[in-house]
């Protein structure tokens, strides 16, 4: 490596001067800074000026920039190596990168494998055939001639609205796969959400419930730092997530239809559904949008409605118009009481 540059490490959450340094450098490359950056590394020149940096937070590597005059010094490779080692030392071993498609090659040369690529963004993971191992772990028997449908749900928590959507979809196909979003950024933890859905549909023989793995890209995980100001983060994230689902999950599993609840309120979800209708057919997948179920009070039943009511009222009989018995029993339990606190 070039003797004029020294390799340095930074802890932006602990040291404010580190944070300011990284923030300013990323800004000079028109990249945003994200507060969940736990660790960063980079190169400084003889005057102590940062000339290259790479960052990470949780299981995501991000915030990469190299001064244009110094590209070709192999700084990227050294930084990626260091960030990967740092994550392993912290016990985080399944890593992801979101970047522009033109920068993919740096990561591919450092042990990352592409998961999905669109015109605006790419996602890579550090496991070779990680998604194939995930699909294998679901132990789904190959069914070629059946009509298979799928729904992706967070179920935070499982409501009568979800149940209605599942019942409707199950009636329209031979087999219905429910993918429950595994990422834990919801009020209710994944194991609770998953088991409520599982119990809540156990009477429907053609419905199977599966964990989504880390392969559903929510707008909470999707870093937006590498996007320019005028680019629409919501639609870029949606395109990437839907491409990943169609190409790497739905096609190998022979899923023909993706069902989704109609979105009357939230603009982000509305936009997501719009993009779904554009992308899925390219992969031979039909999209069916189902009108949402309304409660006895005439309001659309949604998990966010239940959560906002729970913030004001203690669990009780009022819940029954929104949630099935399993969720009702859970929400009234000690366990739920502790979580909601």
């Amino acid at each position, binding site marked *: 490596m070039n003797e004029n540059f020294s390799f340095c490490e930074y802890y932006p959450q602990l040291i404010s001067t580190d944070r300011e340094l990284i923030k300013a450098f990323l800004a000079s490359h028109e990249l945003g800074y994200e507060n969940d950056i736990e660790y960063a590394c980079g190169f400084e020149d003889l005057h102590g000026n940062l000339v290259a940096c790479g960052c990470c937070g949780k299981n995501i590597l991000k915030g990469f920039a190299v001064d244009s005059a110094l590209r070709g010094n192999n700084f990227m490779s050294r930084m990626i190596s260091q960030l990967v080692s740092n994550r392993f030392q912290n016990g985080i071993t399944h890593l992801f990168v979101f970047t522009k498609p033109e920068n993919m090659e740096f990561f591919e040369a450092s042990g990352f494998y592409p998961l999905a690529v669109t015109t605006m963004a790419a996602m890579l993971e550090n496991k070779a*055939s990680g998604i194939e191992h995930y699909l294998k772990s679901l132990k789904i028997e190959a069914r070629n001639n059946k009509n298979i449908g799928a729904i992706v749900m967070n179920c935070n928590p499982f409501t009568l609205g979800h149940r209605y959507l599942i019942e409707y979809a199950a009636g329209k196909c031979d087999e219905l796969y429910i993918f429950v979003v595994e990422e834990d950024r919801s009020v209710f933890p994944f194991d609770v959400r998953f088991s409520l859905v599982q119990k809540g549909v156990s009477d429907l023989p053609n419905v199977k419930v599966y964990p989504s793995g880390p392969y559903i890209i929510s707008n909470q995980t999707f870093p937006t730092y590498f996007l320019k100001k005028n680019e629409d983060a919501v639609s870029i994230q949606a395109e990437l997530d839907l491409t990943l689902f169609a190409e790497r999950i739905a096609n190998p599993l022979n899923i023909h239809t993706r069902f989704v609840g109609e979105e009357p309120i939230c603009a982000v979800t509305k936009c997501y559904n719009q993009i779904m209708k554009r992308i899925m057919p390219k992969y031979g997948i039909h999209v069916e949008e189902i009108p949402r179920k309304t409660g006895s009070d005439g309001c659309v039943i949604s998990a966010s409605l239940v959560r906002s009511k729970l913030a004001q009222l203690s669990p009780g009989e009022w819940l029954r118009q929104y949630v099935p018995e399993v969720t009702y029993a859970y929400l009234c339990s000690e366990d739920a009481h502790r979580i909601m606190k």
Partner: protein
Amino acid sequence: MQIIKPAIAGTTESSDVQIMVSPNNGNGIEINLNSIVKAQFGDSILETVKEVLEAFDVKDAIIQIQDKGAFDWVIRARMQAALCRGSETPFDWKQVE
């Protein structure tokens, strides 16, 4: 030796190799080789990797190799380190040649 957790050794700098091992319970050995000199030395790298796996008696593991032109003994050392880390076995300097 049983690989119980993902572990990594080495770097992706020139003349080094980065090796990642992960558990693959009951599913045998799976090796994924990326090397800038795969066309010239791919077979020889795989041979070295398999030798170390045998020496450590590893039956189930996923091995990902990102090689940047490392010498044979570097590959060997990185393999040994990755396997020891992945099985939480302290490295025995006297036993390994």
